[in-house]
């Protein structure tokens, strides 16, 4: 065993320029935003090595080594998700994609051809200089990577008009055990690298236009009406409890009560009676949901449900601070839970209780990742197709094992907890 380990280390050392076997570095590449309780932490491994590939060819070399030594491979961008998707649950090679950070712009086709490690807001700044803009980007855009969000999937700023990230990816370039190739994105977006490692992608762009943000003091029913008939590209609803927190932590001069924020491309703005000053304040704040943590430890529960179920669901959570981000058909709700001291198993049970309530309203957890992989068959409509594709391309289950496709004890433990939650 020791000999095999030495052989593995020697081979990595010979083949790659940027790698690290130091135990602290390996630990630093074995977390994300989630705070698992001690009970679950016991089942989590740490990376055996961290490699930072500098080309797609190096990514392929990593897979060759992984296959030879039967090592799991865990892709990692900025690790700004909280679903365990980047955790090296069973140890293995953590592949830090941040060095694949080149991009080019096809201005005629309005496409961004981006390396997986490019940071969304960095590229947006460059696009703006060329009169172009991303159509959608995540609220963690100042640090999250192109590959990271595509791997995670989901909604972001701009999704009301332009849909989820899946609807904005033209193609992905993927590395799997068979080689490197450009693929149609549906088997890769939101799949956390379990079906292949995304090394680059083509992202749809739009012409740049100034954003105009307007705030409205309206309840959730009126928010839905106003949002539906507007031409906004982004809509956020902040409930009164969330607004209270905002005022406490950010010293924002805004009125009490619920707020709807609508943001328009200035050319398509037909609404004029909103509050521009508050709108701008909230718009500038869109990247900073964690500012609330300065007053107490908070955890976020994210659920997605059809817009028509939102009013009923919101009544069930009205005592908690929450934000809603609207897409064309769905509402992504981010609910904040205050935690006293460290995150315990009971905190997770609270989280699961909220998910269960959402499920009664046709809602679902935002992403399966590691923690909710036991729900993947219900979260992904084409789960069986994906599972059979996974088996086809990943014979030894080395591509980010345990994520999306349940594996090992963690999903069983959480599923058990799910059963006892009422």
């Amino acid at each position, binding site marked *: 065993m020791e000999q095999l380990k030495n052989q593995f280390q020697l081979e990595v050392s010979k083949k790659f320029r*940027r790698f*690290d076997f*130091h*135990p*602290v*570095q390996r*630990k*630093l*590449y074995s*977390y*994300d*935003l989630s705070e698992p309780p001690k009970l679950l932490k016991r089942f989590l491994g740490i990376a055996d090595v*961290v490699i*930072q590939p500098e080309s797609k060819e190096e990514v392929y070399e990593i897979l060759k080594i992984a296959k030879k030594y039967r090592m799991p491979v865990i892709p990692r961008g*900025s*690790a*700004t998700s909280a679903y365990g998707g980047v955790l090296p649950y069973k140890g293995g090679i953590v592949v*830090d994609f*941040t*060095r694949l950070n080149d991009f080019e712009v096809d201005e005629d086709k309005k496409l961004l051809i981006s390396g997986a490690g490019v*940071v969304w807001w960095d590229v947006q700044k460059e696009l703006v200089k060329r009169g172009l803009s991303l159509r959608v980007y995540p609220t*963690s855009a*100042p*640090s*999250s990577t192109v590959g990271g969000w595509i791997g995670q999937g989901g909604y972001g700023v701009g999704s009301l008009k332009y849909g989820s990230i899946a609807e904005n990816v033209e193609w992905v370039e993927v590395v799997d055990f068979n080689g490197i190739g450009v693929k149609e994105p549906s088997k890769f977006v939101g799949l956390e690298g379990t079906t292949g490692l995304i090394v680059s992608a083509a992202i749809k762009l739009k012409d740049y236009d100034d954003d105009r943000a307007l705030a409205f003091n309206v309840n959730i029913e009126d928010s839905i009406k106003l949002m539906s008939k507007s031409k906004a590209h982004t809509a956020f609803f902040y409930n009164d409890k969330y607004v209270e927190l905002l005022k406490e932590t950010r010293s924002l001069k805004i009125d009490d009560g619920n707020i709807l924020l609508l943001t328009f491309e200035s050319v398509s703005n037909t609404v004029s009676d909103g509050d521009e000053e508050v709108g701008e304040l909230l718009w500038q704040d869109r*990247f*900073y949901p*964690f*500012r609330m*943590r*300065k007053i107490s*430890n908070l955890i976020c529960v994210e659920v997605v449900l059809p817009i028509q179920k939102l009013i009923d669901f919101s009544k069930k959570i009205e005592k908690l601070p929450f934000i809603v981000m609207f897409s064309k058909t769905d509402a992504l709700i981010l609910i904040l839970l205050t935690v006293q001291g460290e995150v315990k198993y009971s905190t997770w049970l609270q989280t699961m209780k909220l998910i269960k309530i959402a499920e009664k309203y046709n809602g679902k957890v935002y992403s399966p990742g590691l923690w909710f992989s036991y729900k993947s068959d219900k979260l992904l409509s084409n789960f069986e197709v994906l599972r059979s594709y996974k088996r086809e391309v990943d014979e030894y289950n080395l591509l980010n094992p345990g994520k999306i496709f349940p594996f090992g004890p963690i999903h069983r433990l959480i599923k058990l907890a799910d059963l006892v939650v009422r």
Partner: protein
Amino acid sequence: MDVEVIENSNKCARCNYCRVCPIYTVEGWESASPRGKLYTIKSLVNGEIDVDARVVKELFKCTTCGSCEVICQVEIPLINLWENFRAHLNSKGYILPVHKKLREKTFREWNPYGESREKRADWFKDLKNLTSTNSDLLYFAGCTASYRTLSIARDTVELFNKTGLDFNYAGVDEYCCGSPFLRTGQRDLAQKLFLKNYKKWKEMGIRRIVTSCAGCYRTIAKDYPKIAEKLDYDFDFEVLHTVQILDEIVDEIDFEDVDVKATYHDPCHLGRHMGVYEEPRRVIEKMGIELIEMEKNRENAFCCGAGGGVKSQFKELALAIGELRVKEALNTNADYLISCCPFCKLHISQSLNNFDKNINVLDIVEVVIRTLNK
């Protein structure tokens, strides 16, 4: 260990917005990022990892520039946190070899360069007649302007003279302010240096102190009052940076007409640490110089790479950071890169060596002296 360090390291949301850190920008490893460092501290406190030479080295790779503190969503006071944790490491005997050498040199000659104390005021030899021993305003040149970038010190006293500002100077009895030691956690030595300077200033009847150096300014204005409070000393000095005086008198100065473009580098210790952003810009504009901002400016300015003990202990890393700042400056196509810190000037000038294109790197006082109407 400081309870605040523990509490604050637990607050980190791990959003990674602190990737703006110049060390992380160059090194690209999580261990070099503020987020990674906070996780390391948390893991050390929880006994999940052990301290070894590598861990200590990584924790000292920080210029204490404060860009992480500016961007931090949960507003962790990170500059203090890094300094407190370094002090903790020092107290446990973890000190990096070059930092130890600086300490030894300073105990010998009272400056971290290890230059002879007797030569500290050599730059001033032919300017002695400019001082007024009755003045309660002290010019504190600092170690870098005294031993490395002498023209800054010389031009400053010449400017004071030309504008009729009476000042006094402690000569060889000026001691390092202690900034490099506060930033690298060696608080005992910083305290000793405080005591030596303080005693001299009191003997001289000083009420106001003006310094050319951003690091000295931060230390004397922000750290000395805390040390004084700890030792139960009064600290009733008014502390200024040269640029603040310039900003006050610039309207009375007669400048030549100039047709040059300049960009301004915000020294971290003057900008993010002390909030002095507009004064230098006003002075530059009053001189009739066209100011072209670099992309990262004011509180988002990119560090030159020299501070926090990085230049001394991690030379290549410091230069790589300096080169990134130089690139930004060259992109402006300005004729001059102006700053307000001898240490930034020294380091940025050295970082220029690997470029074909050139830009004149000057301290703001040097520019003022060159543009005075003769």
